[in-house]
């Protein structure tokens, strides 16, 4: 009886581990240490039970291993994949990533060039080349290459988002806004793009941009009323507009109302979160006081 129970427990453990890896894959989680922990055990102890899943797991674990400087594990995974899929472009790209992790950027670049020679439309290889530029601190070049890439592959959302981040890091907020506008056009229901666009506009500064930012924070909230960044952003932008000497009384009144509404919502959100935990009371109090103190500067 005990023997059967033991096997059942092992099966449960195994399926849990496999399901965890799948979830992390689907969510594109970069929790590399955990992936290595779970993945390595799965590969070493349960390879036979994984069936065809094993190949995608080798890929996932290899990339995580590179993140954790576990070249031994990455190498093992790579060899298994090479054996199973000889001549595969996808495996070639993984070999390139390993070279990148070892900072052998020239060799990695050559690897990606050889992929592109066989298949000039291989987007993965092109994006890895741009990542190399990023890793080397060559931001201007990375931006240029990414722009060229997007002329050809105008629907690649990951690339538009990467470009917006590169521009933000260079403090080129106008161009970052343009990238986010592209993303909002193709993803009108995505509250995160709306909210990020609002943040960029706010950072650009000036009354016009502040009003735009307020509108987009509000839009993000409409799409997802749990987005705290959008709620705080609405509060901040409305408060700044209300406090500006350049606005007329009507605009000021409207923005004071928006800010007051946001204050209410923020306090509610904190009350809800703080329920039952005495530690969070300090956060609730701090927020209340912060909002109160800002009210004074607005009037």
């Amino acid at each position, binding site marked *: 009886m005990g023997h059967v129970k033991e096997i059942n427990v092992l099966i449960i453990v195994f399926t849990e581990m496999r399901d965890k890896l799948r979830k992390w894959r689907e969510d594109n989680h970069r929790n590399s240490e955990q992936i290595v922990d779970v993945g390595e055990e799965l590969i070493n102890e349960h390879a036979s039970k994984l069936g065809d899943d094993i190949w995608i797991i080798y890929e996932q674990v290899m990339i995580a291993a590179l993140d954790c400087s576990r070249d031994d594990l990455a190498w093992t995974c790579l060899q298994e994949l090479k054996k199973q899929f000889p001549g595969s472009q996808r495996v070639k790209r993984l070999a390139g990533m390993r070279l990148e992790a070892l900072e052998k950027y020239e060799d990695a670049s050559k690897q990606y060039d050889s992929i592109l020679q066989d298949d000039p439309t291989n987007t993965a290889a092109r994006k890895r080349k741009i990542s190399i530029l990023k890793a080397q601190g060559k931001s201007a070049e990375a931006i240029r290459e990414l722009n060229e890439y997007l002329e050809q592959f105008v629907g690649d959302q990951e690339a538009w988002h990467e470009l917006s981040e590169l521009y933000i890091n260079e403090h080129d907020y106008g161009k970052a806004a343009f990238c986010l506008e592209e993303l909002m056009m193709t993803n009108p229901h995505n509250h995160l793009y709306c909210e990020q666009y609002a943040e960029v506009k706010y950072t650009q500064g000036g009354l016009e941009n502040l009003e735009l930012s307020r509108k987009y924070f509000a839009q993000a909230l409409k799409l997802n009323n749990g987005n*705290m960044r959008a709620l*705080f*952003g609405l509060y901040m932008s409305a408060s700044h507009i209300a406090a500006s000497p350049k606005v007329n009384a009507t605009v000021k009144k409207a923005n004071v109302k928006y800010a007051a509404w946001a204050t209410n919502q923020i306090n509610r959100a904190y009350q809800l979160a703080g329920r039952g935990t005495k530690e969070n009371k300090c956060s609730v109090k701090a927020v209340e006081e912060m909002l109160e103190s800002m009210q004074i500067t607005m009037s």
Partner: protein
Amino acid sequence: MRMSVKLTTQAYCKMLLHAAKYPHCAVNGLLVAEKQKEKKKDSHSTPILCVDCIPLFHGTLALAPMLEVALTLIDTWCKENKYVIAGYYQANERTKDFRPNQVAEKVGARIAENFSEAAMIMVDSTRFTMGCYEPILAIYDHHENKWKCRDCNADCFEDWCEAQKITSALLEGRSYESLIDFDNHLDDLRNDWTNPEINKSVLHLC
């Protein structure tokens, strides 16, 4: 003579845990010190002791609105706890890049407006090890609108041996997995950016 900023174990620890949690991102945060009562005439008697660290963001650091929220909120929290924001730290996305950039200088300058002895701290990730054998910070002081780098050695800590031992232990134990920064707080308000559990672990190991 200007007195240097000193760090407690808790402050150093949480800084490094933040960087360790997001090795592929830039991270930043604030340092807080206890508010001094009356400033003595000969102000070179006591160094500023940064007693705690508030991790702020990871990833994109160059956007204003959430930073403003964090600064205002933490300022309010400081007033309640008789603290003052005394410094800013940042670890860049690229390991080899440990120079302060525009973000670091701007935030540092803003803090220096309210606290003249503010320190700007850059984390040098190239020397970041589990063993924490040496301090991996570069400390910058604000002098005549410029940031000047000062040597960081064991003197910059209240107790370097303790800081080294405890930071290393927490890294080995993967405490960084439970470290909360302001970004995590915005994702879920129940996440507490004062990190009481980690503070307890630090005290426990002292």
